């Protein structure tokens, strides 16, 4: 297969950046999208040019590093997968492919397709964990948890923190990401002790970092490689508002 690639290239955060066009040929339909870029990069390196920089790590859909917007879709046109799991057979031969970095004020471009996603780490650091002492490992059945709540927590815990929700949202809102963690820990007994503080602090940091607000378009849910549901955003709204009106943080 042959493709024309339009790739965003930018030297550093201060560079203005622009699209470069590359022609790739002999692409195997069984190659992953990242392997296709690897080959392009081999070519560029042989020619003495700077290879296209992009984030990647596990290449098996669990680390969330491989962030890029492909033809307008975070992680490409196929649902429920990350870029590293996308195969070239998902494109038709000769299709023009445009590759852009995550676009959001809080995510400045570091180089080419690599953006700085540490604002999401700071949101987690604000309360996305359980810090109360829970003692030794209890017996597996000592704390009963309703099946639907365990499922809800597991669904939310699937978030890999890739930032596709932010990249997709027209407001660059991080609500789906933040809500997934608030929701996951709010429904579990272990997370209960800190739930009000958690909701207040995580949302506060989310706002300080400059992400936009949620307008319920639902695009994040569609583009999320893990299919995190908007239900978690609704729960985060409940958690936040009830925390605000009843917590001891005056």
């Amino acid at each position, binding site marked *: 297969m042959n493709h024309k690639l339009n790739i965003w290239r930018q030297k550093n955060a201060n560079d203005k950046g622009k699209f470069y066009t590359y022609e790739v040929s002999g692409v195997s339909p069984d190659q992953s999208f990242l392997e296709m870029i690897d080959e392009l990069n081999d070519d560029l390196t042989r020619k003495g040019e700077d290879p296209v920089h992009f984030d990647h790590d596990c290449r098996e859909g669990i680390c969330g590093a491989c962030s890029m917007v492909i033809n*307008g879709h975070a992680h490409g046109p196929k649902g429920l997968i990350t870029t590293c799991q996308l195969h070239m057979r998902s494109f038709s031969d000769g299709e023009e492919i445009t590759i852009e970095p995550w676009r959001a004020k809080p995510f400045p471009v570091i180089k080419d397709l690599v953006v700085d996603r540490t604002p999401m780490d700071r949101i987690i650091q604000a309360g996305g964990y359980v810090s109360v002492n829970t003692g030794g490992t209890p017996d597996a059945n000592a704390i009963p948890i309703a099946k639907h709540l365990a499922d809800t927590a597991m669904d939310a815990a699937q978030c890999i923190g890739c930032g596709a929700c932010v990249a997709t949202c027209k407001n660059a809102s991080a609500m789906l990401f933040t809500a997934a963690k608030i929701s996951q820990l709010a429904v579990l007994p272990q997370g209960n002790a800190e739930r009000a503080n958690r909701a207040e602090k995580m949302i506060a940091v989310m706002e300080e970092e400059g992400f*936009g607000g949620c*307008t319920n378009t639902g695009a994040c849910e569609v583009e999320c490689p893990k299919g995190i549901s908007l239900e978690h955003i609704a729960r985060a709204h409940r958690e936040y508002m009830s925390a605000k009106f009843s917590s001891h943080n005056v």
Partner: protein
Amino acid sequence: MSWIINTLTSTIGRKVIMALTGLFLILFLAVHLVGNLQLLYHDGGEAFNLYTQFMAHNPLIQIVSKGNFFFIFLHIFVSLTLYVRNKKARPIGYKVSAGNSNSTWSSRSMALLGTFILIFIGLHLYGFWFNLKFGEVAMVTIDGVSMHNAYALVAESYTIPGVVAFYIFSMIVLAFHLWHGFASAFQSLGLNHPKYNGIISGMGKLYAVIIPALFALIPIYMYLNNAG
């Protein structure tokens, strides 16, 4: 007190204000429609004039009306602050956009649709409310009580094709705003539950189509009636 300000100015707090004021406006529209339907009686405008007279003089309605103005103002003001914040969060856009494949056009165009509704509200208030309150409107006597002939004011403006066309267009815009807005308000309030999601989105779509359609039918009917 600072926690209250803090809550109401957070993005979630503002979203809750949008939802509550939006739902109030949705209720208001239904009541407004019942009033407008009085225009359809073939009674020379008696029912509508009595209704207008009641609305203009009942003290309770006066309070609700002030509240209504305030909620519209709040809805618009808060939407503006959110709009500015949201635009700032994405200074550089994408070359290729996913378009309708991951969200509806109406959900992405609430500010545009709202701005148009605002223009409509402005002209609408000027044409009817302002004229009735401060302008010169012919009087009519019903059951010995002298009152504004609001019916004549409305009927006359609906003989102008441009006015009727603008009204219909505005109702289509309103329909799109509500197509997303109705269900969205519930999500903003955290009301997302598998038992009720279906009925909320179903009612939202029905409301978004039926209420603006009925509003639009009135000027169409009056135009055809008076022309024919």
